[in-house]
Protein backbone atom coordinates (compact mmCIF):
# COMPACT_ATOMS: atom_id res chain seq x y z
CA UNK A 1 0.00 0.00 0.00
CA UNK A 2 1.28 3.46 -0.81
CA UNK A 3 1.64 5.86 2.12
CA UNK A 4 -1.54 7.74 2.85
CA UNK A 5 -1.23 11.47 3.16
CA UNK A 6 -3.43 12.61 6.03
CA UNK A 7 -4.49 16.15 6.70
CA UNK A 8 -6.09 17.36 9.87
CA UNK A 9 -7.35 20.83 10.62
CA UNK A 10 -8.81 22.68 13.56
CA UNK A 11 -10.66 25.89 12.93
CA UNK A 12 -9.86 27.37 16.36
CA UNK A 13 -6.17 26.81 15.70
CA UNK A 14 -6.12 28.77 12.47
CA UNK A 15 -5.92 32.46 12.09
CA UNK A 16 -8.58 33.73 9.73
CA UNK A 17 -8.27 37.29 8.61
CA UNK A 18 -11.13 38.69 6.57
CA UNK A 19 -10.32 40.85 3.59
CA UNK A 20 -11.99 44.13 2.85
CA UNK A 21 -13.00 45.62 -0.52
CA UNK A 22 -10.74 48.55 -1.37
CA UNK A 23 -11.06 51.71 -3.42
CA UNK A 24 -7.99 53.47 -4.74
CA UNK A 25 -8.49 56.51 -2.61
CA UNK A 26 -10.79 57.57 0.19
CA UNK A 27 -11.36 61.31 0.22
CA UNK A 28 -12.51 62.97 3.42
CA UNK A 29 -14.62 65.91 2.35
CA UNK A 30 -14.90 67.34 5.82
CA UNK A 31 -14.93 66.86 9.52
CA UNK A 32 -17.67 68.65 11.43
CA UNK A 33 -17.17 69.88 14.98
CA UNK A 34 -19.66 71.69 17.14
CA UNK A 35 -17.95 75.01 16.51
CA UNK A 36 -18.46 74.54 12.76
CA UNK A 37 -22.07 73.67 13.32
CA UNK A 38 -22.58 76.71 15.49
CA UNK A 39 -21.07 78.87 12.76
CA UNK A 40 -24.06 77.88 10.61
CA UNK A 41 -24.51 76.36 7.15
CA UNK A 42 -22.37 79.08 5.54
CA UNK A 43 -19.21 77.54 7.11
CA UNK A 44 -20.16 74.14 5.68
CA UNK A 45 -20.80 75.55 2.21
CA UNK A 46 -17.45 77.31 2.34
CA UNK A 47 -15.74 74.02 3.25
CA UNK A 48 -17.34 72.22 0.30
CA UNK A 49 -16.54 75.08 -2.06
CA UNK A 50 -12.86 74.72 -1.15
CA UNK A 51 -12.90 70.91 -1.39
CA UNK A 52 -14.65 70.53 -4.76
CA UNK A 53 -11.68 71.33 -7.06
CA UNK A 54 -9.38 69.01 -5.09
CA UNK A 55 -11.77 66.11 -5.42
CA UNK A 56 -11.85 66.67 -9.18
CA UNK A 57 -8.05 66.77 -9.22
CA UNK A 58 -7.61 63.59 -7.23
CA UNK A 59 -10.09 61.79 -9.48
CA UNK A 60 -8.15 62.72 -12.58
CA UNK A 61 -4.79 61.86 -10.96
CA UNK A 62 -6.03 58.36 -10.13
CA UNK A 63 -7.65 57.92 -13.55
CA UNK A 64 -4.21 58.43 -15.06
CA UNK A 65 -2.52 56.22 -12.51
CA UNK A 66 -4.80 53.20 -12.76
CA UNK A 67 -4.48 50.96 -15.81
CA UNK A 68 -7.66 51.38 -17.85
CA UNK A 69 -8.56 54.58 -16.05
CA UNK A 70 -11.09 52.85 -13.81
CA UNK A 71 -10.30 54.72 -10.63
CA UNK A 72 -12.32 53.84 -7.54
CA UNK A 73 -12.74 56.97 -5.44
CA UNK A 74 -15.02 57.11 -2.42
CA UNK A 75 -15.87 60.14 -0.32
CA UNK A 76 -16.63 60.34 3.35
CA UNK A 77 -17.61 62.84 5.99
CA UNK A 78 -16.97 62.60 9.73
CA UNK A 79 -19.24 64.12 12.35
CA UNK A 80 -17.94 64.67 15.86
CA UNK A 81 -20.39 63.11 18.26
CA UNK A 82 -17.67 62.23 20.79
CA UNK A 83 -16.28 65.44 22.24
CA UNK A 84 -19.62 67.20 22.16
CA UNK A 85 -23.08 66.12 21.20
CA UNK A 86 -24.97 68.62 19.14
CA UNK A 87 -28.06 68.58 16.95
CA UNK A 88 -29.48 65.27 15.67
CA UNK A 89 -28.83 63.22 12.52
CA UNK A 90 -32.36 64.04 11.32
CA UNK A 91 -31.62 67.73 11.50
CA UNK A 92 -27.93 67.80 10.59
CA UNK A 93 -27.33 65.20 7.89
CA UNK A 94 -29.80 66.54 5.29
CA UNK A 95 -28.23 69.97 5.76
CA UNK A 96 -24.73 68.55 5.14
CA UNK A 97 -25.86 66.61 2.06
CA UNK A 98 -27.62 69.66 0.68
CA UNK A 99 -24.60 71.91 1.18
CA UNK A 100 -22.41 69.30 -0.54
CA UNK A 101 -24.82 68.97 -3.45
CA UNK A 102 -24.64 72.71 -4.06
CA UNK A 103 -21.03 72.13 -5.08
CA UNK A 104 -21.77 68.92 -6.99
CA UNK A 105 -20.24 66.81 -4.27
CA UNK A 106 -21.65 63.41 -3.30
CA UNK A 107 -20.98 62.17 0.18
CA UNK A 108 -20.75 58.39 -0.14
CA UNK A 109 -20.24 57.56 3.53
CA UNK A 110 -21.00 59.34 6.77
CA UNK A 111 -19.21 58.27 9.94
CA UNK A 112 -19.50 59.04 13.63
CA UNK A 113 -16.35 59.98 15.47
CA UNK A 114 -17.47 58.21 18.66
CA UNK A 115 -17.38 54.91 16.75
CA UNK A 116 -13.59 55.32 16.49
CA UNK A 117 -13.50 55.08 20.29
CA UNK A 118 -16.06 52.36 20.78
CA UNK A 119 -19.23 51.16 19.18
CA UNK A 120 -21.89 48.63 19.94
CA UNK A 121 -24.89 47.43 18.04
CA UNK A 122 -26.72 44.22 17.26
CA UNK A 123 -24.89 43.75 13.98
CA UNK A 124 -21.25 44.33 14.99
CA UNK A 125 -21.41 43.55 18.71
CA UNK A 126 -19.08 45.66 20.83
CA UNK A 127 -15.92 46.97 19.19
CA UNK A 128 -13.41 49.14 21.02
CA UNK A 129 -11.29 50.34 18.14
CA UNK A 130 -9.31 52.83 20.22
CA UNK A 131 -8.20 50.09 22.66
CA UNK A 132 -7.43 47.85 19.75
CA UNK A 133 -5.14 50.45 18.18
CA UNK A 134 -3.57 51.32 21.55
CA UNK A 135 -2.57 47.66 21.96
CA UNK A 136 -0.89 47.80 18.56
CA UNK A 137 1.35 50.74 19.36
CA UNK A 138 5.02 49.80 19.20
CA UNK A 139 7.09 52.61 20.62
CA UNK A 140 9.76 54.11 18.40
CA UNK A 141 12.90 53.05 20.33
CA UNK A 142 15.63 55.62 21.05
CA UNK A 143 19.17 54.42 20.20
CA UNK A 144 20.56 51.89 22.72
CA UNK A 145 17.17 50.35 23.40
CA UNK A 146 18.19 46.71 23.83
CA UNK A 147 14.99 45.31 25.33
CA UNK A 148 16.52 44.81 28.77
CA UNK A 149 13.94 47.11 30.26
CA UNK A 150 10.35 47.75 29.26
CA UNK A 151 9.92 50.76 26.96
CA UNK A 152 10.03 54.06 28.81
CA UNK A 153 6.43 55.21 28.80
CA UNK A 154 4.66 58.23 30.07
CA UNK A 155 1.22 56.72 30.51
CA UNK A 156 -1.18 58.13 27.98
CA UNK A 157 1.53 59.85 25.92
CA UNK A 158 3.46 58.89 22.83
CA UNK A 159 6.53 60.64 21.42
CA UNK A 160 8.92 60.30 18.52
CA UNK A 161 12.19 60.28 20.47
CA UNK A 162 13.63 60.73 23.95
CA UNK A 163 12.11 63.23 26.32
CA UNK A 164 14.19 65.80 28.19
CA UNK A 165 15.61 64.31 31.38
CA UNK A 166 13.97 65.55 34.55
CA UNK A 167 15.63 68.84 35.46
CA UNK A 168 13.82 69.91 38.58
CA UNK A 169 15.43 68.71 41.82
CA UNK A 170 13.52 65.89 43.46
CA UNK A 171 14.33 67.17 46.91
CA UNK A 172 14.42 70.78 48.01
CA UNK A 173 18.16 70.55 48.77
CA UNK A 174 18.98 68.72 45.54
CA UNK A 175 20.82 70.44 42.77
CA UNK A 176 18.88 71.11 39.59
CA UNK A 177 20.44 69.61 36.47
CA UNK A 178 20.85 71.97 33.59
CA UNK A 179 18.20 71.58 30.90
CA UNK A 180 18.88 68.96 28.25
CA UNK A 181 16.95 68.91 25.02
CA UNK A 182 14.64 66.12 23.94
CA UNK A 183 15.71 64.39 20.73
CA UNK A 184 13.88 62.94 17.78
CA UNK A 185 14.97 59.38 16.97
CA UNK A 186 14.99 59.72 13.20
CA UNK A 187 16.28 63.29 13.18
CA UNK A 188 18.00 64.75 10.19
CA UNK A 189 20.49 67.10 11.68
CA UNK A 190 18.11 68.73 14.08
CA UNK A 191 15.20 67.37 16.05
CA UNK A 192 11.52 68.00 15.67
CA UNK A 193 10.37 66.44 18.88
CA UNK A 194 6.67 65.59 19.14
CA UNK A 195 4.92 64.33 22.26
CA UNK A 196 1.25 63.45 21.84
CA UNK A 197 -1.36 62.98 24.52
CA UNK A 198 -3.35 59.86 23.63
CA UNK A 199 -5.96 60.05 26.35
CA UNK A 200 -6.72 61.36 29.79
CA UNK A 201 -8.73 59.88 32.59
CA UNK A 202 -11.06 61.47 35.09
CA UNK A 203 -11.94 58.79 37.58
CA UNK A 204 -12.75 55.69 35.61
CA UNK A 205 -13.72 57.56 32.47
CA UNK A 206 -11.11 57.70 29.75
CA UNK A 207 -11.34 60.35 27.06
CA UNK A 208 -9.36 59.61 23.92
CA UNK A 209 -7.65 62.58 22.34
CA UNK A 210 -8.69 64.01 19.01
CA UNK A 211 -5.43 62.96 17.24
CA UNK A 212 -5.75 59.43 18.57
CA UNK A 213 -9.30 59.06 17.24
CA UNK A 214 -8.19 60.64 13.97
CA UNK A 215 -5.43 58.00 13.72
CA UNK A 216 -8.05 55.28 14.27
CA UNK A 217 -10.18 56.95 11.58
CA UNK A 218 -7.27 56.85 9.11
CA UNK A 219 -6.61 53.16 9.84
CA UNK A 220 -10.29 52.38 9.37
CA UNK A 221 -10.30 54.19 6.01
CA UNK A 222 -7.15 52.30 5.01
CA UNK A 223 -8.91 49.00 5.76
CA UNK A 224 -6.04 47.95 8.06
CA UNK A 225 -7.97 47.13 11.23
CA UNK A 226 -9.40 43.76 12.21
CA UNK A 227 -11.24 42.74 15.37
CA UNK A 228 -11.13 39.00 16.03
CA UNK A 229 -10.15 38.61 12.38
CA UNK A 230 -13.25 40.42 11.14
CA UNK A 231 -13.53 43.80 9.48
CA UNK A 232 -14.80 46.21 12.13
CA UNK A 233 -17.65 48.62 11.46
CA UNK A 234 -18.46 47.75 7.86
CA UNK A 235 -20.60 50.49 6.26
CA UNK A 236 -24.31 49.82 6.30
CA UNK A 237 -27.12 51.51 4.36
CA UNK A 238 -29.55 53.54 6.41
CA UNK A 239 -32.88 51.89 7.03
CA UNK A 240 -35.66 54.44 7.06
CA UNK A 241 -35.21 58.11 7.79
CA UNK A 242 -32.30 59.81 9.59
CA UNK A 243 -32.90 59.14 13.29
CA UNK A 244 -33.41 61.73 15.99
CA UNK A 245 -30.57 60.39 18.09
CA UNK A 246 -26.90 59.82 17.23
CA UNK A 247 -26.85 56.52 19.10
CA UNK A 248 -29.38 55.09 16.69
CA UNK A 249 -27.13 55.83 13.72
CA UNK A 250 -24.75 53.11 12.45
CA UNK A 251 -21.01 53.79 12.86
CA UNK A 252 -20.48 54.23 9.12
CA UNK A 253 -23.53 54.83 6.93
CA UNK A 254 -23.44 54.16 3.20
CA UNK A 255 -25.43 57.03 1.74
CA UNK A 256 -24.69 56.46 -1.93
CA UNK A 257 -25.68 52.92 -3.02
CA UNK A 258 -23.38 53.19 -6.08
CA UNK A 259 -20.36 54.25 -4.02
CA UNK A 260 -16.93 52.68 -4.47
CA UNK A 261 -15.77 50.79 -1.33
CA UNK A 262 -15.34 52.83 1.84
CA UNK A 263 -11.81 51.64 2.62
CA UNK A 264 -9.02 52.40 0.20
CA UNK A 265 -5.33 51.90 -0.54
CA UNK A 266 -4.73 55.57 0.21
CA UNK A 267 -6.52 58.42 1.90
CA UNK A 268 -6.75 62.11 1.20
CA UNK A 269 -8.14 64.60 3.66
CA UNK A 270 -8.96 68.13 2.63
CA UNK A 271 -8.61 70.23 5.75
CA UNK A 272 -8.23 73.73 7.00
CA UNK A 273 -4.63 74.57 7.98
CA UNK A 274 -5.78 74.89 11.57
CA UNK A 275 -5.73 71.06 11.66
CA UNK A 276 -2.02 70.89 10.82
CA UNK A 277 -0.84 70.28 14.40
CA UNK A 278 -3.51 67.59 14.84
CA UNK A 279 -2.35 65.82 11.71
CA UNK A 280 1.32 65.98 12.77
CA UNK A 281 0.19 64.21 15.95
CA UNK A 282 -1.82 61.72 13.88
CA UNK A 283 1.24 60.88 11.80
CA UNK A 284 3.35 60.50 14.95
CA UNK A 285 0.83 57.94 16.18
CA UNK A 286 0.38 56.19 12.83
CA UNK A 287 4.11 55.70 12.42
CA UNK A 288 4.09 53.67 15.65
CA UNK A 289 1.13 51.43 14.90
CA UNK A 290 2.01 47.86 14.00
CA UNK A 291 -0.57 46.68 11.51
CA UNK A 292 -1.17 42.95 11.33
CA UNK A 293 1.32 41.27 9.04
CA UNK A 294 -1.38 39.24 7.30
CA UNK A 295 -3.48 42.34 6.63
CA UNK A 296 -0.45 44.16 5.18
CA UNK A 297 0.17 41.19 2.89
CA UNK A 298 -3.46 41.07 1.77
CA UNK A 299 -3.43 44.72 0.79
CA UNK A 300 -0.04 44.43 -0.92
CA UNK A 301 -1.15 41.37 -2.91
CA UNK A 302 -4.35 43.06 -3.99
CA UNK A 303 -2.67 46.24 -5.14
CA UNK A 304 -0.01 44.29 -7.02
CA UNK A 305 -2.66 42.23 -8.78
CA UNK A 306 -4.13 45.41 -10.23
CA UNK A 307 -0.70 46.91 -10.83
CA UNK A 308 -1.02 49.80 -8.39
CA UNK A 309 2.24 50.54 -6.65
CA UNK A 310 1.60 51.21 -3.00
CA UNK A 311 3.87 52.98 -0.54
CA UNK A 312 5.35 50.49 1.88
CA UNK A 313 5.06 52.65 4.98
CA UNK A 314 1.51 53.28 5.90
CA UNK A 315 1.99 56.93 6.85
CA UNK A 316 2.99 57.48 3.23
CA UNK A 317 -0.45 56.26 2.13
CA UNK A 318 -2.06 59.14 4.00
CA UNK A 319 -2.07 62.52 2.30
CA UNK A 320 -3.60 65.92 2.83
CA UNK A 321 -4.61 69.12 1.20
CA UNK A 322 -4.49 72.02 3.62
CA UNK A 323 -6.52 74.82 2.18
Amino acid at each position, binding site marked *: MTPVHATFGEVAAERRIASVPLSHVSVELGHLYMEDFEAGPARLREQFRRVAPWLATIRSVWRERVPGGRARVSTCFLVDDYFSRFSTPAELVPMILEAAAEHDLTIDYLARESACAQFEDGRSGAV*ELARLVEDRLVDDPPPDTDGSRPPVKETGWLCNGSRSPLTTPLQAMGKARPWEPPTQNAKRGHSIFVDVELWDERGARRTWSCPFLAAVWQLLRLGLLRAEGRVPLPPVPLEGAWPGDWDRLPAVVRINPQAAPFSAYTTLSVLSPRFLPVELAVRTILS*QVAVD*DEVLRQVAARSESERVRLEEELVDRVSYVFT
Partner: protein
Amino acid sequence: MLVIGEVHTGLLQNSGEISEPACRQVLGLMSGETVRVSRRPIVHALSPERLTGVDCALPAASGSRIRGVGTVVSRCAVTGGRVAQGSSYVRVARSETDRRLSWSHYLARPGVVEVLGKAKAADIAEGFAGDGAPRGHGCLDLTAITGRFLDLVQTSPLLNRRAPFRMPRTILRWVAETGEPSIGFTLHTEQERSLRLTHPGPFTPAVVDLCEDLAMHDWLLTSLLVVVERARVGATPAAEVAARLSPAVDHLLHLWMPAARVEERLTPFWESLERRPGFSRQWRSLVDRVRDQVAVHTLALLSANAETGGR
Protein backbone atom coordinates in the same frame (compact mmCIF):
# COMPACT_ATOMS: atom_id res chain seq x y z
CA MET B 1 20.78 36.53 6.85
CA LEU B 2 19.63 34.43 9.80
CA VAL B 3 16.93 34.17 12.43
CA ILE B 4 17.67 34.17 16.15
CA GLY B 5 15.22 33.43 18.91
CA GLU B 6 14.71 32.36 22.44
CA VAL B 7 12.15 30.13 24.15
CA HIS B 8 11.59 30.16 27.91
CA THR B 9 9.69 27.22 29.34
CA GLY B 10 8.30 26.73 32.83
CA LEU B 11 5.57 25.17 34.90
CA LEU B 12 2.39 27.25 34.85
CA GLN B 13 2.03 28.93 38.24
CA ASN B 14 -1.18 27.19 39.16
CA SER B 15 -2.01 24.25 41.41
CA GLY B 16 -3.69 22.25 38.67
CA GLU B 17 -3.94 22.38 34.90
CA ILE B 18 -6.14 25.16 33.59
CA SER B 19 -9.11 24.79 31.27
CA GLU B 20 -9.24 25.90 27.67
CA PRO B 21 -11.35 29.02 28.41
CA ALA B 22 -8.86 29.98 31.14
CA CYS B 23 -6.00 29.53 28.65
CA ARG B 24 -7.77 31.93 26.31
CA GLN B 25 -8.04 34.54 29.05
CA VAL B 26 -4.50 34.11 30.35
CA LEU B 27 -3.08 34.41 26.84
CA GLY B 28 -5.32 37.25 25.64
CA LEU B 29 -2.43 39.70 25.44
CA MET B 30 -4.01 41.94 22.83
CA SER B 31 -7.54 43.23 22.36
CA GLY B 32 -9.28 42.24 19.15
CA GLU B 33 -7.00 39.24 18.64
CA THR B 34 -8.00 35.66 19.24
CA VAL B 35 -5.96 33.09 21.12
CA ARG B 36 -5.44 30.16 18.81
CA VAL B 37 -6.23 26.81 20.37
CA SER B 38 -5.62 23.36 18.96
CA ARG B 39 -7.01 20.37 20.83
CA ARG B 40 -5.36 17.42 19.10
CA PRO B 41 -3.27 15.59 20.09
CA ILE B 42 -2.84 17.84 23.10
CA VAL B 43 -4.46 21.13 24.03
CA HIS B 44 -2.18 23.89 22.93
CA ALA B 45 -3.06 27.58 23.20
CA LEU B 46 -1.06 30.32 21.52
CA SER B 47 -1.27 34.03 22.31
CA PRO B 48 -1.38 36.74 19.66
CA GLU B 49 2.04 38.05 18.68
CA ARG B 50 3.35 41.36 20.00
CA LEU B 51 6.26 43.48 18.90
CA THR B 52 9.02 45.23 20.83
CA GLY B 53 11.10 47.95 19.21
CA VAL B 54 14.89 47.80 19.54
CA ASP B 55 17.85 49.85 18.36
CA CYS B 56 21.01 48.33 19.81
CA ALA B 57 24.08 46.18 19.31
CA LEU B 58 23.56 42.63 18.10
CA PRO B 59 25.52 39.75 19.61
CA ALA B 60 28.86 39.16 17.87
CA ALA B 61 31.42 36.51 18.80
CA SER B 62 34.18 38.69 17.38
CA GLY B 63 33.20 41.51 19.71
CA SER B 64 32.66 43.89 16.81
CA ARG B 65 29.84 46.36 17.19
CA ILE B 66 26.93 45.57 14.93
CA ARG B 67 23.98 47.94 15.16
CA GLY B 68 20.52 46.57 14.51
CA VAL B 69 17.20 48.39 14.36
CA GLY B 70 13.75 46.83 14.15
CA THR B 71 11.20 44.80 16.03
CA VAL B 72 11.24 41.56 18.02
CA VAL B 73 8.19 39.26 17.76
CA SER B 74 7.05 37.69 21.02
CA ARG B 75 4.28 35.30 21.95
CA CYS B 76 3.30 32.94 24.75
CA ALA B 77 1.86 29.47 24.77
CA VAL B 78 0.29 27.09 27.26
CA THR B 79 0.42 23.36 26.53
CA GLY B 80 -1.84 20.85 28.23
CA GLY B 81 -3.04 23.67 30.50
CA ARG B 82 0.20 23.07 32.42
CA VAL B 83 3.38 24.21 30.66
CA ALA B 84 3.90 27.91 29.95
CA GLN B 85 6.24 29.23 27.30
CA GLY B 86 7.45 32.64 26.23
CA SER B 87 9.02 32.86 22.81
CA SER B 88 10.70 35.70 20.88
CA TYR B 89 12.56 35.89 17.63
CA VAL B 90 13.97 38.29 15.08
CA ARG B 91 14.85 37.89 11.44
CA VAL B 92 18.17 39.62 10.96
CA ALA B 93 18.47 41.29 7.55
CA ARG B 94 20.88 43.71 5.92
CA SER B 95 19.70 47.30 5.72
CA GLU B 96 19.85 49.08 2.41
CA THR B 97 21.26 52.17 4.06
CA ASP B 98 23.82 52.89 6.75
CA ARG B 99 21.59 55.18 8.77
CA ARG B 100 18.53 54.65 10.84
CA LEU B 101 15.29 55.24 8.95
CA SER B 102 11.93 56.46 10.19
CA TRP B 103 10.18 54.05 12.54
CA SER B 104 7.34 53.36 10.11
CA HIS B 105 9.91 51.75 7.80
CA TYR B 106 10.64 49.11 10.45
CA LEU B 107 6.98 48.62 11.34
CA ALA B 108 6.28 47.81 7.69
CA ARG B 109 8.41 44.66 8.19
CA PRO B 110 7.38 43.29 11.58
CA GLY B 111 9.84 40.89 13.22
CA VAL B 112 12.83 42.07 11.17
CA VAL B 113 15.90 43.72 12.66
CA GLU B 114 17.98 45.47 10.03
CA VAL B 115 21.73 45.57 10.38
CA LEU B 116 23.31 48.96 9.67
CA GLY B 117 26.76 48.42 8.21
CA LYS B 118 28.74 45.24 7.78
CA ALA B 119 28.10 42.01 9.62
CA LYS B 120 28.62 38.30 9.13
CA ALA B 121 25.82 35.86 9.89
CA ALA B 122 28.27 33.39 11.45
CA ASP B 123 29.58 36.07 13.81
CA ILE B 124 26.06 36.88 15.04
CA ALA B 125 25.08 33.20 15.29
CA GLU B 126 28.16 32.33 17.33
CA GLY B 127 27.77 35.44 19.47
CA PHE B 128 24.18 34.57 20.23
CA ALA B 129 24.17 30.81 20.69
CA GLY B 130 27.86 29.95 21.10
CA ASP B 131 29.24 28.65 24.35
CA GLY B 132 30.29 31.39 26.75
CA ALA B 133 29.43 34.03 24.19
CA PRO B 134 30.29 37.39 25.72
CA ARG B 135 27.03 39.27 26.05
CA GLY B 136 27.99 42.85 26.54
CA HIS B 137 25.96 45.58 28.10
CA GLY B 138 23.62 47.22 25.64
CA CYS B 139 23.39 44.14 23.45
CA LEU B 140 20.02 42.84 22.21
CA ASP B 141 18.47 41.24 25.28
CA LEU B 142 16.02 38.61 24.08
CA THR B 143 16.19 36.99 27.51
CA ALA B 144 14.69 40.06 29.18
CA ILE B 145 12.06 40.55 26.47
CA THR B 146 10.97 36.89 26.49
CA GLY B 147 11.04 36.76 30.28
CA ARG B 148 8.74 39.77 30.52
CA PHE B 149 6.19 38.16 28.22
CA LEU B 150 6.25 34.89 30.15
CA ASP B 151 5.87 36.90 33.38
CA LEU B 152 2.71 38.45 31.94
CA VAL B 153 1.22 34.96 31.76
CA GLN B 154 2.66 33.67 35.03
CA THR B 155 1.41 36.64 37.02
CA SER B 156 -2.10 36.52 35.54
CA PRO B 157 -4.72 37.01 38.26
CA LEU B 158 -6.47 33.92 36.93
CA LEU B 159 -3.66 31.73 38.27
CA ASN B 160 -3.47 30.83 41.95
CA ARG B 161 0.36 30.77 41.99
CA ARG B 162 0.41 27.47 43.90
CA ALA B 163 2.42 25.26 41.57
CA PRO B 164 2.61 21.62 42.74
CA PHE B 165 6.41 21.69 42.64
CA ARG B 166 9.16 24.19 41.95
CA MET B 167 11.01 23.91 38.71
CA PRO B 168 13.27 26.55 37.20
CA ARG B 169 12.57 27.95 33.74
CA THR B 170 14.75 26.67 30.93
CA ILE B 171 16.05 28.96 28.22
CA LEU B 172 16.58 27.70 24.69
CA ARG B 173 18.48 30.02 22.35
CA TRP B 174 18.10 29.12 18.71
CA VAL B 175 19.62 30.17 15.42
CA ALA B 176 18.08 29.21 12.09
CA GLU B 177 19.68 29.60 8.69
CA THR B 178 18.93 28.39 5.20
CA GLY B 179 21.14 25.62 3.84
CA GLU B 180 21.81 21.89 3.91
CA PRO B 181 19.59 20.40 6.65
CA SER B 182 21.32 19.99 9.99
CA ILE B 183 20.44 20.35 13.63
CA GLY B 184 22.62 20.74 16.72
CA PHE B 185 21.27 20.75 20.25
CA THR B 186 23.61 21.70 23.10
CA LEU B 187 23.07 21.72 26.84
CA HIS B 188 25.06 24.52 28.42
CA THR B 189 24.15 25.04 32.06
CA GLU B 190 21.31 23.54 34.09
CA GLN B 191 18.88 25.93 32.49
CA GLU B 192 20.47 27.04 29.23
CA ARG B 193 20.33 25.25 25.93
CA SER B 194 21.14 26.18 22.37
CA LEU B 195 19.86 24.95 19.07
CA ARG B 196 21.49 25.47 15.67
CA LEU B 197 19.26 24.69 12.77
CA THR B 198 19.92 24.79 9.07
CA HIS B 199 16.79 24.26 7.01
CA PRO B 200 16.22 24.05 3.27
CA GLY B 201 14.13 26.85 1.77
CA PRO B 202 13.27 30.20 3.30
CA PHE B 203 12.46 30.75 6.96
CA THR B 204 8.82 30.34 7.94
CA PRO B 205 7.14 30.59 11.36
CA ALA B 206 6.94 26.77 11.31
CA VAL B 207 10.61 26.85 12.36
CA VAL B 208 9.55 28.74 15.50
CA ASP B 209 6.91 26.08 16.21
CA LEU B 210 9.64 23.43 15.95
CA CYS B 211 11.92 25.30 18.38
CA GLU B 212 9.05 25.77 20.85
CA ASP B 213 8.14 22.10 20.60
CA LEU B 214 11.75 21.05 21.22
CA ALA B 215 12.06 23.49 24.12
CA MET B 216 8.94 22.10 25.73
CA HIS B 217 10.07 18.50 25.49
CA ASP B 218 13.54 19.36 26.72
CA TRP B 219 11.92 21.06 29.71
CA LEU B 220 9.69 18.03 30.37
CA LEU B 221 12.70 15.76 30.28
CA THR B 222 14.74 18.08 32.50
CA SER B 223 11.89 18.38 34.98
CA LEU B 224 11.23 14.66 35.16
CA LEU B 225 14.93 14.07 35.76
CA VAL B 226 14.87 16.58 38.60
CA VAL B 227 11.74 15.05 40.14
CA VAL B 228 13.29 11.56 40.03
CA GLU B 229 16.54 12.91 41.44
CA ARG B 230 14.72 14.65 44.28
CA ALA B 231 12.89 11.40 45.11
CA ARG B 232 16.26 9.81 46.02
CA VAL B 233 15.20 6.34 44.97
CA GLY B 234 16.94 3.70 47.14
CA ALA B 235 18.02 6.21 49.76
CA THR B 236 14.55 7.04 51.03
CA PRO B 237 11.68 4.84 52.25
CA ALA B 238 9.47 3.61 49.41
CA ALA B 239 6.42 5.49 50.65
CA GLU B 240 8.31 8.75 50.58
CA VAL B 241 9.74 8.03 47.14
CA ALA B 242 6.26 7.37 45.81
CA ALA B 243 4.97 10.58 47.39
CA ARG B 244 7.78 12.57 45.84
CA LEU B 245 7.16 11.04 42.44
CA SER B 246 3.45 11.61 42.46
CA PRO B 247 3.56 15.21 41.09
CA ALA B 248 5.29 13.84 38.00
CA VAL B 249 2.51 11.31 37.52
CA ASP B 250 -0.15 13.96 38.10
CA HIS B 251 1.30 16.77 36.05
CA LEU B 252 3.99 15.68 33.61
CA LEU B 253 3.75 12.15 32.26
CA HIS B 254 0.81 12.73 29.91
CA LEU B 255 2.36 15.77 28.25
CA TRP B 256 4.96 13.99 26.11
CA MET B 257 3.88 14.43 22.48
CA PRO B 258 7.02 14.91 20.42
CA ALA B 259 6.62 16.76 17.11
CA ALA B 260 2.86 17.03 17.68
CA ARG B 261 2.74 20.54 16.29
CA VAL B 262 5.62 20.42 13.88
CA GLU B 263 5.08 20.93 10.17
CA GLU B 264 5.59 17.73 8.23
CA ARG B 265 8.61 18.93 6.28
CA LEU B 266 10.39 19.76 9.55
CA THR B 267 9.70 16.46 11.33
CA PRO B 268 12.99 14.93 10.08
CA PHE B 269 14.76 17.37 12.45
CA TRP B 270 12.88 15.91 15.40
CA GLU B 271 13.52 12.39 14.14
CA SER B 272 17.25 12.97 13.94
CA LEU B 273 17.27 14.18 17.55
CA GLU B 274 15.32 11.05 18.47
CA ARG B 275 18.18 8.97 17.08
CA ARG B 276 20.82 10.98 18.88
CA PRO B 277 20.59 11.77 21.80
CA GLY B 278 17.19 10.05 21.80
CA PHE B 279 14.86 12.27 23.78
CA SER B 280 11.97 9.81 23.78
CA ARG B 281 14.27 6.91 24.74
CA GLN B 282 15.37 8.74 27.87
CA TRP B 283 11.83 9.87 28.59
CA ARG B 284 10.47 6.32 28.34
CA SER B 285 13.14 4.97 30.62
CA LEU B 286 12.40 7.67 33.19
CA VAL B 287 8.67 7.11 32.94
CA ASP B 288 9.22 3.37 33.45
CA ARG B 289 11.30 4.10 36.48
CA VAL B 290 8.63 6.35 37.98
CA ARG B 291 5.90 3.81 37.29
CA ASP B 292 8.00 0.94 38.67
CA GLN B 293 8.63 2.82 41.88
CA VAL B 294 4.96 3.62 42.27
CA ALA B 295 4.07 -0.01 41.46
CA VAL B 296 6.58 -1.35 43.96
CA HIS B 297 5.13 0.91 46.60
CA THR B 298 1.58 -0.14 45.73
CA LEU B 299 2.56 -3.80 45.96
CA ALA B 300 4.17 -3.15 49.32
CA LEU B 301 0.97 -1.47 50.52
CA LEU B 302 -1.17 -4.33 49.19
CA SER B 303 0.91 -7.00 50.85
CA ALA B 304 0.96 -5.00 54.09
CA ASN B 305 -2.83 -4.80 53.90
CA ALA B 306 -3.07 -8.52 53.17
CA GLU B 307 -0.90 -9.25 56.16
CA THR B 308 -2.93 -7.14 58.54
CA GLY B 309 -6.14 -8.50 57.00
CA GLY B 310 -4.94 -12.11 57.46
CA ARG B 311 -4.38 -11.65 61.15
